[in-house]
């Protein structure tokens, strides 16, 4: 212990003695460690602890599946959930939620609330109590109880003033009075973005229904039961239901996976890639610092030889050198934490608020004790990694040679610089892998943003309205409201057209319905023949500039009394009527056999709803006037800045109904961009890592070349005495840098190719092979390495041979 303290004290003195070296090494390590701490904090927030539920690993997401139709995540039907609740032996609790977006009145300005209706065990399953009042319990489901609501902490605080006295008071949701029975804990946000929860009350028929799949089911496993066992248990129940109710359930299965895994689908791949890149950055930083340490160790060979001559063992010497290295790494880790504390908030500021609210764990990203522990461990590893090679090398000195005043002129053992060269080669290899990875992510992101999504997202303002059923009880009233609203909006200055639709591209929710095609036979047992059902106004296609492929668009003549019609998307037309025109053919939407047959009057171009979707979803468009519903989206094409007409649009809504809130007002461009913000943030981080990698690789080449110039000064003098011109010397030194760079690239490029393959499978649809990225990155790295090698080489070419020959 005493020797350790002595080593640390001496190490501190040595680091103080070389402030330049210490500063460069600490900054280099801080960049590498900081990159990892930032990435780990994101992983910690989003993948390890996205929710505050106790025993989170036992909370499962449960989906229905239809393997024959390749459906892996279907919401559950209420009847099936009932089976699971009654027959399953694997779960302590099973619960479900269903979207319940309501207009809230009675507390000032009308508010649109993002709510969920939940079953009785929902809160008990999650194990989180209310902060004030209580959560929803079984008692709230009895018919005698008054309707209740539980509010999220942020909604209560930000929208309702954070008044504790609100508990027990009444608020109106869609015209129905509900008693606020509780305010949840601050960090409770499940499902992500939820602002309010209400009991999901189902009638006997609704609870037994097996056709409508709309429930998001979660379960808490009993202790000692694995997800696989639970899946088997529910699978057996589903198989029995398939036999009992073949028309709705035949061939259906169940998928059970951890809630974290389910929610992180999508972000996990990006975070894994980023962590890999951050590790590369750290390895690069370590290689650089190891290189610096090697140079420094060579300069200290005599000191080490003297210590050895005085009786120090090799282990003792290694311990002393490692203590210095660990001290350096500890400083680097401290500086890395500082960098992270600045970097992380900066990163979070680039994430749109909507995404922070709705992506699990994003709002929990912070530098916590886990990040601190991670950084300390990383610092220790970096200290060992950077210090071990120099310590091993310098701890075995040739005492006879080292203790002489100088070494014999000009003799350097072959391979003396091999380790340093190896480190530079590794740096080049790591850097090209990192750069290619970053390049592929950035070009992939750009390609997605620039690809034709089948609609024109420029200059479109969007917002949503949900008319409460209590107030707009008839379809005529709903139809009339939206007809008047679109007319008013179209009359606003700066508006080219306006349209209603039940969902817009880039929305997170849309309706899927069963499709029955006339003349194509009944559904097979258990078959789900689904298409997205869009209710749209007559100007929808013109507003979004979705092209018409065949037939005609909707007109104002396609009203309530007119013959039911539909426009279908290109992909749906190809699927059901391959090589034939679908115009004039008939189809029915939904499960109701009494629903009208709709005649296909047009075929529209396909649209990509989510930026990462590779295949367009088959879609059926129905005139809004023929099937009006209260919750609709509005799209307004403007001639200038879309947000400039936002206030006027809101005024028009309130002119029709002053208690009617609008919500989620964003431009379509913003919506698409928000949806891409995860990819964009990843691409931005990768770019940052790539730039750090490039700088570190250049610094590595520069440091080695500068060191070589110093080491070879005498040799350069000899060469010049023998007739070498400055040009010869310059070429000699640059050639060395080029050889190192080329070898590094030769090793790194196949690795980059392998990485590209991995990336394109992990980030399917984002990253694809791009020769231009490989070529460009190779060129940039070679150029940077060339310049980094040229500068010291130029200095070498200016060496005075007389001075150089005297140099030992």
């Amino acid at each position, binding site marked *: 212990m005493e020797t350790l303290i002595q080593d640390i004290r001496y190490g501190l003195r040595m680091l103080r003695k070389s402030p330049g070296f210490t500063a460069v090494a600490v900054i280099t390590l801080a960049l590498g460690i900081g990159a990892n701490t930032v990435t780990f904090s994101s992983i910690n927030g989003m993948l390890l602890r996205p929710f505050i539920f106790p025993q989170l690993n036992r909370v499962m997401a449960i989906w229905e599946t239809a393997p024959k139709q390749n459906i892996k995540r279907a919401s559950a039907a209420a009847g099936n959930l009932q089976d699971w609740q009654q027959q399953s032996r694997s779960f302590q609790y099973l619960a479900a939620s269903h979207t319940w977006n309501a207009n809230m009145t009675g507390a000032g300005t009308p508010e649109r609330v993002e709510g969920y209706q939940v079953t009785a065990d929902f809160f008990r399953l999650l194990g989180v109590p209310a902060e004030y009042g209580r959560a929803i319990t079984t008692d709230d489901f009895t018919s005698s109880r008054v309707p209740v609501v539980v509010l999220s902490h942020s909604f209560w605080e930000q929208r309702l003033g954070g008044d504790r006295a609100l508990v027990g008071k009444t608020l109106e949701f869609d015209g129905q009075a509900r008693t606020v029975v509780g305010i949840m804990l601050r960090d409770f946000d499940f499902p992500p973005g939820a602002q309010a929860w209400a009991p999901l009350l189902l009638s006997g028929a609704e609870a037994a229904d097996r056709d409508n799949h709309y429930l998001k089911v979660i379960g808490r496993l009993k202790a000692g039961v694995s997800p696989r066992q639970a899946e088997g248990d529910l699978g057996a129940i589903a198989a029995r239901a398939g036999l009992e109710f073949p028309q709705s359930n035949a061939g259906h299965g169940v998928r059970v996976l951890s809630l974290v895994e389910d929610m992180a689908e999508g972000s996990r791949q990006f975070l894994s890639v980023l962590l890999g890149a951050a590790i590369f950055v750290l390895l690069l930083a370590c290689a650089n610092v190891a290189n610096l340490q090697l140079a420094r160790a060579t300069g200290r060979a005599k000191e080490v030889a003297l210590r050895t001559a005085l009786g120090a063992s090799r282990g003792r010497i290694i311990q002393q050198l490692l203590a210095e290295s660990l001290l350096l790494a500890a400083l680097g880790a401290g500086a890395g934490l500082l960098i992270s504390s600045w970097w992380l908030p900066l990163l979070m500021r680039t994430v749109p608020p909507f995404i922070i609210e709705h992506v699990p764990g994003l709002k929990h990203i912070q530098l916590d004790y886990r990040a601190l522990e991670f950084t300390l461990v990383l610092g220790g590893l970096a200290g060992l990694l950077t210090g071990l090679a120099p310590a091993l090398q310098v701890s075995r000195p040739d005492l006879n040679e080292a203790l002489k005043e100088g070494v*014999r*002129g*000009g*003799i*350097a*053992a*072959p391979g*003396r610089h091999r380790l340093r060269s190896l480190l530079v080669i590794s740096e080049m290899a790591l850097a090209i892998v990192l750069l290619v990875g970053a390049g592929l992510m950035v070009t992939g992101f750009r390609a997605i943003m620039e690809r034709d999504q089948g609609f024109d997202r420029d200059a479109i303002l969007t917002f949503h309205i949900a008319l409460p059923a209590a107030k707009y009880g008839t379809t005529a009233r709903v139809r009339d409201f939206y007809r008047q609203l679109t007319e008013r909006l179209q009359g606003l200055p700066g508006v080219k057209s306006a349209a209603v639709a039940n969902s817009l591209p880039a929305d997170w929710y849309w309706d899927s319905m069963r499709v029955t095609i006339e003349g194509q036979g009944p559904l097979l047992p258990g078959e789900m023949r689904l298409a997205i059902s869009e209710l749209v106004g007559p100007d929808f296609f013109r507003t979004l500039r979705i092209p018409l492929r065949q037939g005609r668009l909707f007109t104002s003549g396609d009203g309530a009394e007119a013959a039911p019609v539909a426009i279908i998307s290109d992909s749906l037309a190809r699927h059901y009527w391959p090589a034939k025109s679908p115009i004039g053919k008939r189809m029915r939407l939904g499960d109701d056999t009494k629903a009208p047959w709709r005649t296909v009057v047009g075929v529209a171009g396909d649209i990509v709803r989510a930026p990462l979707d590779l295949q367009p979803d088959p879609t059926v468009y129905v005139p809004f006037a023929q099937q009006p519903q209260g919750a609709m989206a509005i799209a307004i094409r403007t001639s200038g800045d879309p947000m400039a007409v936002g206030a006027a649009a809101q005024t028009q809504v309130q002119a029709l109904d002053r208690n009617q809130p609008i919500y989620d007002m964003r431009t379509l461009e913003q919506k698409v961009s928000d949806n891409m913000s995860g990819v964009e943030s990843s691409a931005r981080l990768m770019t940052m890592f790539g730039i750090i990698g490039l700088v570190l690789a250049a610094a590595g080449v520069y440091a080695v070349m500068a060191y070589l110039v110093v080491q070879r000064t*005498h*040799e350069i003098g*000899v*060469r*010049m*005495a*023998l*007739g*070498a*011109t*400055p*040009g*010869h010397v310059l070429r000699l030194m640059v050639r060395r840098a080029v050889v190192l760079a080329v070898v590094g690239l030769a090793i790194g490029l196949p690795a980059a190719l392998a990485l590209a393959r991995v990336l394109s499978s992990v980030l399917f649809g984002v990253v694809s092979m791009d020769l231009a990225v490989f070529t460009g990155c190779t060129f940039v790295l070679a150029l940077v390495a060339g310049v980094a090698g040229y500068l010291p080489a130029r200095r070498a070419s200016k060496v005075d*041979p*007389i001075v150089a*020959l005297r140099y030992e």
Partner: protein
Amino acid sequence: MNATAPSPGQQLIRMDTINKVFYTDEVETHALSGIQLEVRKGEYVAIAGPSGSGKSTLLSIIGLLDSPSEGEYWLNGSQVANLNINERSRIRNREIGFIFQNFNLIGDLTVYENVELPLTYRGMSGVERKKRVLEALERVGMSHRLKHYPSQLSGGQQQRVAVARALGGSPSIMLADEPTGNLDSRNAENIMELLRELHREGSTICMVTHDPRFARHAERTIHLFDGRVVEETVEVN
């Protein structure tokens, strides 16, 4: 001692009133003052003197590694005192062969490559280079060590390789700076014998030494003291 007249060859080096002044922290140090020197082709000249007398500075100026502060220097009839760095490199490469006290072989190059090195700067063809390298190494008795690295050779062997490197370019003059300074007496004698042989075969040699025993190997010895030529003796065999 038997007197033999210096070789009556053509004039190879002529120096006229060469001065060399070093400036360090505003202190002027006169390393060489008013040096007059003439070396003829085929001559074997020794420059002797105590430490700090200016021998090595003079040799550096002769070898175009340094330039005089004042005075004129003709090599092979051309004025070379004030050439640019590339011209000096070219002349060093073609006209001068260096033999250093500490051998100055390049550790990462083999014996063959070390001897070949100055020839590569001349842009000579590979075939010609090979011929010359093998001839030079044969001449110094080191042709059996072509693939060895300097660290695998004894001091005497390294200096032989250094002599071969100087010889390989067929220079007008070989400049030897204390060539025996790092050798034991036996190897030192061998190297001096080698230089004498080369002189007998027609090479012009200019050697710096502080050891009078070795200075006697030369035909003529120029004695320096405090940067001035104080005496010139002719060896009589």
